[in-house]
Structure formats: structure tokens, C-alpha cells
């Protein structure tokens, strides 16, 4: 009769389906994955989704996990924080998911962690980098299968000081949200600890997803800082670098972009030489230690054929998260005959060690992943129509990650300049 009545009947039907929970061996393992599938950040979410689909297809091709096929449901972070939280809750309560891989944005990770703990749902933070979650609370159901802001920023400072030890001024243009603000706090504190005489000439925080940086670029062009740092990523980073290159700012200052590994191919020739680039972990499609590894080459080729692009760090992070989940199921199945429920999976995740496509990662007792950090400097090459990395250094995770139980911003203040002498594996592009 009225729309109202039909709508209510529909949701009654939907409700009944959700009530039957999976008790024993399910006929499929459903996992929820949140990622940016719209907006400027979709240049991250789409490859992440493609990687997940590819890996899950491969798992199912070998009969799934212990014979049970895996299915993924994707939630678009682009629809805003509230949508992600309510969709997350709907998946857990109505779709009966066994695990959740949540999210790219640090903001969403902050909001989801307590909700996951509340819903008692295994939650793997597959890409977000905010270190505050594990430092401000201890979680049973929340894990991070990759590093966090601290090792990434400390490694970047070390690489910057090893390659350009005598720069005087620096400016920052970060996105105005959790990641942008916190990463700058850690980077600037570490830099002051290791090189106290550096002067910060400008701190700019344009809106997340801002389409136009012309005013910021004009201001930086006038100030001419030695170094311009930006931890922005995805579409925002592409826009910022393109507009800076157009107006010659990249020629005047050394750009330090700790997340630009993900933009190399998209920026093409717009990304000049001499830019310091990081990959939030040891992720690089020409990774010196794994370039010749057959599994790495096979994955990279299959991914390129499916998406037309080389894998970027969100792809490696997705691979790591799924590898960890698979390993957890293996461990849980070894421990007991019954099909692992969430509690069994969570116990298996404690202190787990696993390998995605590059160096292995180990989870500490505070559920934080220890992941080595790779950085390099861009150089144009004749083999690819976009910049590749030279003078690559890989920093071991342990010395540059905040010890368990300490707060990053305080620990970073105590860094000792002697750290600069740290011995690090270094590779030139040719090798």
C-alpha cells in the first residue's frame, strides 16, 4: 500500500536471514575489506581491491582455505566515516563475516578499532599507518600486518640526512587529517632530534582531497625551502607533484615523498629526478632482493596483466594481510580439529610471522607489525617511461620502531644522532 509498508516488509525478510550464525565448518569464508573505491584515494583502493580479488582467486583455485572457498565483500571508504562504520557493523552483524581487513584511511582505522573490539571481530589494519591505536589502548581483536608512521618517518629522516646532510630549511604540505598531522609530528620531532639546527619555514595542511594547490605552491616558490616534505598519497599526491612540476617548484627544492612509490607509474615523466621516495615498507616492483624471485615475478606479471599497472605498496600490504590471515587459519587448524572461530583465529594471530611478497613480517605482542623500510632517489631510465629508484636503502624495522609500551612522539625525541651511522643494505639501480 504505502512505500513505508513495503519497505518494512523487505527489511523483516532481510533480518531473518542474518539470525542463523555459522556454527561449524561454513560452506564459505566471508571477509570484509574496506578501501577507497571513489574519490582521489581510489587510486589506492582500486589496486588494493584488484590484488585481493587476484589473491583470493588463487587461494580458491587451490581449493580455498582447508577446502573452504573465500569470498570478499568491499566497503567504499570514499562514502565517508559514518558510512564505513555503519557498513562495517552491517557486515559483521548481517553478513556473518569471519574477518575484516579495515581500512586505508587512518581516520577510519581510528574509528573502526574500538568498534571491532566491541563486536569481537578479528580486524586486520591492512594499510593505515596511524601509530596511536596501539599506543593509546591494548586490543585483543585488532592487528596491523604492516608498519606504522614511526618507522616510516624515522627511516625517511635517516635517508634524507644520509643523502643530503647539510640542508637548512624545510616546508611541509600534508593532508589535513589524522595521517597528515601525526606523520608530520613524528617526522619533525625525529628531524629536530637528529639535526636540531633545521628551520621549518612553512606548515601547510590543505584539505584531504583538495583539487588545487596553486596558492600553496606560490607560497613555497617564494620561500624556496631546501626540502619540501609531503606524506600525502594517491590522487592528492599526484595533483600536488604535477602542479609543482608545472611551475618548476620541484627544480628549486628537494622533494621528500615517503609514500610516492605508489605514484611512480601514474606520474610518469612529471616526477623529476632527485626526488626521495619511500614505499611504507620494503615495497617496490623492482625490489633488489626479490626482483629475480619467481613467485614475485609471477605475481607482478599477473597483476600487470589484470590491471595494466605494476604492483604498488597498497598491493603489497593487501598481500601481507591476506598472507597473515591464511597463516592464522593454518596455525588454528593445526591446534584443533574444530573449525577455527574468531577466538581461535585471534589466538593464532598472536606473535605470528608471515611473508607476503617481500621480506617477512613479525607481529609484536602489541599486535604491531615489524616491517623493514625501503627508500630511494628517483632517476629516469630508458627501460621504463616513468621514474625508477636508485641509491636504494633498506632500513631494518627493529631499531626504528617505537618499543612496545612507549609513545612514539616521546620516543622519537630521544633519538641519538649517532643513529645516522647505522649500517644499511644499499643498492644502485643497475645491480
Amino acid at each position: 500500500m504505502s512505500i513505508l509498508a513495503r519497505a518494512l516488509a523487505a527489511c523483516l525478510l532481510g533480518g531473518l536471514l542474518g539470525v542463523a550464525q555459522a556454527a561449524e565448518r561454513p560452506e564459505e569464508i566471508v571477509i570484509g575489506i574496506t578501501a577507497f573505491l571513489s574519490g582521489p584515494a581510489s587510486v589506492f583502493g582500486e589496486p588494493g581491491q584488484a590484488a585481493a580479488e587476484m589473491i583470493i582467486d588463487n587461494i580458491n583455485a587451490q581449493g580455498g582455505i582447508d577446502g573452504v572457498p573465500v569470498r570478499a565483500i568491499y566497503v567504499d571508504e570514499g562514502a565517508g566515516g559514518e558510512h564505513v562504520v555503519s557498513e562495517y557493523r552491517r557486515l559483521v552483524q548481517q553478513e556473518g563475516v569471519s574477518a575484516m581487513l579495515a581500512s586505508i584511511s587512518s581516520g577510519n582505522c581510528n574509528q573502526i578499532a574500538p568498534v571491532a573490539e566491541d563486536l569481537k571481530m578479528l580486524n586486520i589494519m591492512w594499510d593505515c599507518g596511524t601509530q596511536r591505536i596501539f599506543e593509546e589502548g591494548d586490543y585483543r581483536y585488532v592487528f596491523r600486518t604492516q608498519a606504522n608512521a614511526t618507522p616510516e618517518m624515522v627511516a625517511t629522516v635517516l635517508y634524507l640526512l644520509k643523502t643530503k646532510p647539510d640542508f637548512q630549511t624545510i616546508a611541509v604540505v600534508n593532508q589535513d587529517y589524522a595521517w597528515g598531522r601525526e606523520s608530520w609530528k613524528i617526522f619533525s620531532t625525529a628531524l629536530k632530534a637528529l639535526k636540531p639546527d633545521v628551520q621549518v619555514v612553512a606548515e601547510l595542511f590543505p584539505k584531504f582531497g583538495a583539487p588545487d594547490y596553486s596558492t600553496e605552491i606560490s607560497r613555497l616558490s617564494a620561500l624556496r625551502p631546501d626540502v619540501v616534505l609531503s606524506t600525502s598519497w594517491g590522487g592528492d599526491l599526484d595533483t600536488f607533484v604535477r602542479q609543482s612540476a608545472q611551475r618548476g617548484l620541484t627544480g628549486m627544492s628537494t622533494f621528500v615523498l615517503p609514500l610516492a612509490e605508489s605514484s611512480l607509474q601514474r606520474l610518469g615523466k612529471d616526477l623529476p629526478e632527485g626526488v626521495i621516495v619511500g614505499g611504507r615498507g620494503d615495497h617496490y616492483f623492482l625490489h633488489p632482493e626479490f626482483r629475480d624471485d619467481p613467485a614475485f615475478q609471477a605475481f607482478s606479471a599477473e597483476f600487470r596483466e589484470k590491471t595494466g599497472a605494476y604492483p604498488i605498496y597498497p598491493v603489497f600490504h593487501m598481500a601481507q594481510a591476506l598472507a597473515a590471515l591464511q597463516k592464522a587459519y593454518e596455525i588454528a587448524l593445526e591446534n584443533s580439529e574444530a573449525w577455527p572461530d574468531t577466538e581461535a583465529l585471534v589466538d593464532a594471530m598472536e606473535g605470528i610471522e608471515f611473508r607476503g611478497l617481500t621480506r617477512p613480517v613479525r607481529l609484536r605482542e602489541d599486535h604491531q607489525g615489524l616491517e623493514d623500510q625501503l627508500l630511494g632517489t628517483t632517476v629516469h631510465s630508458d627501460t621504463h617511461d616513468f621514474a625508477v629508484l636508485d641509491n636504494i636503502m633498506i632500513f631494518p624495522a627493529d631499531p626504528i620502531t617505537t618499543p612496545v609500551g612507549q609513545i612514539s612522539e616521546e620516543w622519537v625525541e630521544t633519538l641519538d644522532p649517532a643513529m645516522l651511522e647505522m649500517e644499511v643494505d644499499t643498492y644502485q639501480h643497475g645491480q
Partner: protein
Amino acid sequence: MTPQLLWLATLDGVAYAALVFLVAVGLTLIFGVLRVLNVAHGSFYAIGAYTAASLGIAISSGGLPGWLSYPALILAAVLIGTLLGSLIERQLLARIYGKEEVLQLLVTFAVFMILEDVQRLVWGVQPYFQDTPLRLLGTMEVAGVFYTRYQLLVLPATALVVLVGLRLFLRHTLQGRVILAVTQDREAAMAMGIDAHRVYLTTFVLGASFAALGGALASPTTALVPGIGSDMIVLSFAVVATAGLGQVEGAALAALLMGLGRSFAVYMYPEFEVLMPYLIMVVVLLIRPQGLFGVAETRRI
């Protein structure tokens, strides 16, 4: 605030104001005649931008000469302005002129929601880059800083052409004077036998084309992503309300005020950049509710 920074802030402010003016002038023109605040105006901006980008990509991938991308901007604007403008005015707005103001406002809000999804369906969610028109013109150095000629010269020039052109059109052509007449006093104009529907259609198409032109011109300077429509529309609300609804020249000055306010904020208090336009709007509306140039209507009993 050295003279150099002052000069730079002004240049950035003018470039940004030019863009905002193009969108705002269309909005104020439509309100002046139809007395409808077109919430869907931001969608014309966005779709104009996407169309220009698509044409540009087609040109460059088709191997055609780069300079063709300039006329492509105008073509995109006219195409979107006429197509979408006439479709919406004839099929929707024409049916509700008699209805209450809130319903007219909501029809355009509904159209805005529909077009937001249409954008997503047609152009997807991936960012679009098409900066041939910008790159071809190269950069120039001003006060030690490199500016793209496109942003420094083309945008303000186009805005000026549109402002002067519109002024001449409104004051010195028959069609223009008819539009002015309907703006000043709709009942009197109708009484003199002016065909209101034709005037509404031409005004709406003209206004929509300006917004699409604003979008087309902006496409080389920014990444095109879903949501650029909603940000631009609320900013042009601020410009139009500050200038005074229906005031064309007023919109130019208000856009300049907002552009400079925003760029000076980036230089002095970056945190206030986003806040400036609305702060200006609140202050102006509190002092002069009808806007800087608007005329207060008194009620006769």
C-alpha cells in the same frame, strides 16, 4: 608580509576569483530572472569539467594538434549548457514556476543529487588529468615565482571577457534588455507581452553554460574527482549572496573579495583558508541582508 608575498597572494587570489566568478555569475543570472537558486549549478560546473577533460583526452589520444583543446573547452561548455540547461528548464523547472519557493529549491537539489550519480556512472571515480591547455602555454616568472600563463592570464582574461560581454549583452541588445526587464519586475515585463518562457529558457541555458565554462576552464588546473561540484556550489552561494542576488557586476567584486580573502589566508593564517569565504558572507549578510549591491524589497499594504 613582504611586498613580494603581497603581490603573489593577489595574483593567486585573482586567478581563483576568475574561476569562482564564472560559476557565480551564471547562478546569479538564473536567480535574477527565475527567482530560483539553482543548487544543481555545481553539477554543471563538474560535468562541464569532465566533458572538457574527455574531449581533451580524445584529442590527444587521437593524435590531433594540442591547440584544439582550447576550442574544446568552449565546445564542452556550450554543449553541456544547452543540453542539460534546456532539458532541466523545460522538463522540470517549467512545471513548478507557480509552486512555493522551497519546492523550486528542492527540485534543483534533487537534480543535483541525480547528476552527482550520473557523473559517477559516466566518468567513474578515478581522478581525471587533462592539462594540455595549461602545459602548452608554459610558465612565466613573476616576482621570482613561476606561474602558468594559463592560470595567470587565460582565466582572468576569460572572466573579464564574460563580465564585459554579459554587461554589453544585457544593456545593449534586445534579448539582454528583455532579461533585465524580467529581472527588475517580472509582472510588469509579462504585462508588456514578453514571452517569459523563452526568457527563462535562454537565461537558464546561458547561466548553465557559464558554470560549465567555469568547469571546463578549471579542468586543466585540477584533478577531477567526485565532489568538486558540491564544494564549488556552496562557494558560489557565498559569492552570490554576498554580492546581492541577481547582481552580475556585484558577483565579480564579491568573487574577487573571496578569492583574495582565501589566498591571503593561505599566506598568513593557513588554518583559516577554508573559513574565509563564509566568514565574509556572514559579516556582509549581517550588515546588508540584501548583499553589497542588492536592493531591499519593501512590502506595500
